[in-house]
């Protein structure tokens, strides 16, 4: 156990699986699978496993995503890292082929592979294709694909290992903004389940639900709200598909107030699904939703920073609800 960065934790998980499974491969295009961490050995998958298993390709994200699917169908585990500008380029093959394969063949296909889909850093100064607030919802509407979005280095490693061991295809959303987050991460391989939300803090007055890049702001807000005497329950979805309804319903059944927070465009953000599930199952709830507006992120830091949901927004909204 040591303090590790998210980035290192993820690659450590991949490395351990590749050591176990000599058939496994990794495909990348820009970002060589290299990570370092103070006091730990540098991980470099390319030099460790060679260029037949760890492959640097051209700018063709659809090929990368299709390739790991084809590897799965041939009985080899493979994973690929799709950088954010390419986050939706492989969408069709994941949505229309991979997600349907097992079902449409009556269970005969074996499409288990992993697509690491980077979500932009969501920092000021970029725009358009370089700062996106959307991948989560697109991927979460697909049946037959498990879509996960860890928010801590611990989960990032454990869910990567579970994803690589799963016989289902997994979209592993990778919020680039969390890449340098630090946390205690076991050295050995371990799994974090691909179908459970995590209750990050217990409370009775209000349930706040978020995921991925939304979590740091939520945790910051929850700390301040708690200090101000509010009893806040914080749920980190972690899994968008299949969403863990039970944890949500249990929590809001208790608090009767639900605030969702997403770093995703408002319309059809994950929070919409959270609210709808709770609304169908719990009566007499007060709802509020915080999300990125239905507008692309502009480059100007002044405009961007004003738009991006933050701890301040969450605190104010929570105070209005309780």
């Amino acid at each position, binding site marked *: 156990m040591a303090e590790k960065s998210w980035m290192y934790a993820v690659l450590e998980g991949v490395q351990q699986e590749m050591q176990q499974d*000599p*058939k496994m*491969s990794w495909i990348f295009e820009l970002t060589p699978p290299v990570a370092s961490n103070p006091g730990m050995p540098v991980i470099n998958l390319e030099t460790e496993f060679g260029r*037949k*298993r760890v*492959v640097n*390709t*051209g700018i*063709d994200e*659809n*090929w990368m995503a*299709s*390739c*790991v*699917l*084809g*590897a*799965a*169908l*041939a*009985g*080899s585990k*493979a994973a690929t890292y799709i950088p954010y500008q390419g986050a939706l380029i492989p969408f*069709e*093959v994941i949505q*229309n*082929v991979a997600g349907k394969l*097992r*079902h*449409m*063949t*009556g*269970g*005969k*296909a*074996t499409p*288990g592979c992993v697509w690491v889909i980077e979500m932009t850093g969501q920092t000021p100064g970029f725009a358009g294709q370089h700062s996106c607030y959307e991948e989560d919802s697109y991927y979460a509407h697909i*049946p*037959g694909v*498990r879509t996960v979005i860890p928010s801590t280095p611990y989960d990032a490693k454990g869910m990567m290992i579970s994803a690589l061991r*799963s*016989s*289902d295809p997994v979209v592993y959303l990778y919020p680039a903004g969390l890449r340098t987050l630090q946390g205690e991460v076991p050295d050995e391989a371990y799994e974090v389940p691909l179908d459970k939300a995590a209750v990050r803090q217990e409370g009775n007055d209000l349930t706040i639900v978020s995921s991925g890049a939304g979590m740091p702001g939520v945790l910051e807000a929850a700390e301040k709200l708690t200090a101000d005497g509010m009893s806040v329950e914080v749920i980190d979805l972690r899994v968008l598909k*299949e969403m863990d309804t039970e944890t949500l319903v249990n929590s809001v059944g208790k608090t009767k107030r639900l605030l969702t927070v997403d770093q995703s465009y408002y319309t059809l953000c994950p929070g919409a699904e959270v609210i709808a599930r709770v609304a169908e199952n719990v009566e007499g709830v007060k709802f509020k939703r915080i999300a990125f507006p239905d507008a692309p992120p502009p480059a100007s830091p002044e405009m961007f920073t004003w738009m991006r949901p933050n701890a301040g927004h969450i605190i104010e909204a929570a105070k209005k609800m309780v």
Partner: protein
Amino acid sequence: MKYEETNKATSTEVDAPSSESRRGFLKLAAISGAAVSVTKRGALANGEIGFWAKDLPDDKLIDMYRTILKIRWHERTQADKMLADPSYRGYNHFYAGQEAVATGVCAALRNDGPFEQIDLVYSSHRPSGHAIAKGVDIPTMVAEMDFRSTGMNGGYAAEMHISDPSVGFIGADGMIGPAPVIASGSAFAFRARESDQVAVVFAGDGNYAAPHFHSTLNNAKLLDLPLIYVCENNLYHQYAHYSYSCPHKDISDAAAAYGIPANVVDGQDVVQVYNAAKTAVDRARAGGGPTFIEAKTYRYYNHWGAPGAKEGELGAFGYDPLAITSFRPEREVRAWMQRDPVDISRKILIDWGILDEARAAEIETEVKQEIASAFEWAMQQPLCNPEDALKHVFAEGTVPARQFG
């Protein structure tokens, strides 16, 4: 474009003699209707002429003939059922006319053994010929096409998505575009794990225009993948001639541009297809990378189902429901039917002294009977259980019903 033209344009490099007067150099009969084989590119080393069929034992050659007949009679039986039996619900994208392509290619592959050793075939939206050639169980395939719960895929797949990995038939694909790229992924895995397996993808002329075409060939070349791309150029995608979407006369020219060995073969002659496939498979197993084979061929039915067909007759004529931009002329259909893959394969076997007419006819009767029994069995299979729809979304468990609110 007529076949003759194509042939002329592509016979520039190697003028191999036709299959029917080749094997064992036993006979040199000149048989009318014989085609000229064309191996467009790829030099043959050390006097090796690439006529691999010379080494095939009789039973293997007879198997190829039998496979062609199975595909043909599966389709004719199904077409008749579609035309005559209103209670029959199955359908197909018929492959009749193209049988020699799937048969010749799959005859060069490893089709049994453990999954980690057999070659894999990716099919298209026109899969039943590829499936039979790769060796799927015909009765369960027939049951699948009529949505039976004991069908090859439990009634989930129907025609356009059949799959049986146990014989390396990865399966049909409803899409134009993705299959070749995914197939290259299987080839990638073979190379990464140092297996000598080969991945084959069958794709129509329509697939040329898809952007995936570039991805597939570019990466196959860059990484030397053991991939065989079999382009079945039957001249039309849906109801448009391929010249609407491709500036090449031979699609193989596009593949050759990547530095990939690319051949044009007569897709009506199973021996020529086999020869080309065997060359490609040997190259791929030896680490020599991908091959592109363009088989010039033709489908006798229309794009989908049996419109324009008559019960008991082969082929479909004169169906033009939609003021199509360019519809294939009936004379073109009839011209192609003169070079029928069933006839050609039969003549070759007789010419090579492997069968006589009587035995050839007997085999055809056996196959017809086998197919008839397959349909009989399949039509008695149980229908699906509705709730099973919620299975197989993930490897384990079921998903919740949501349609009731």
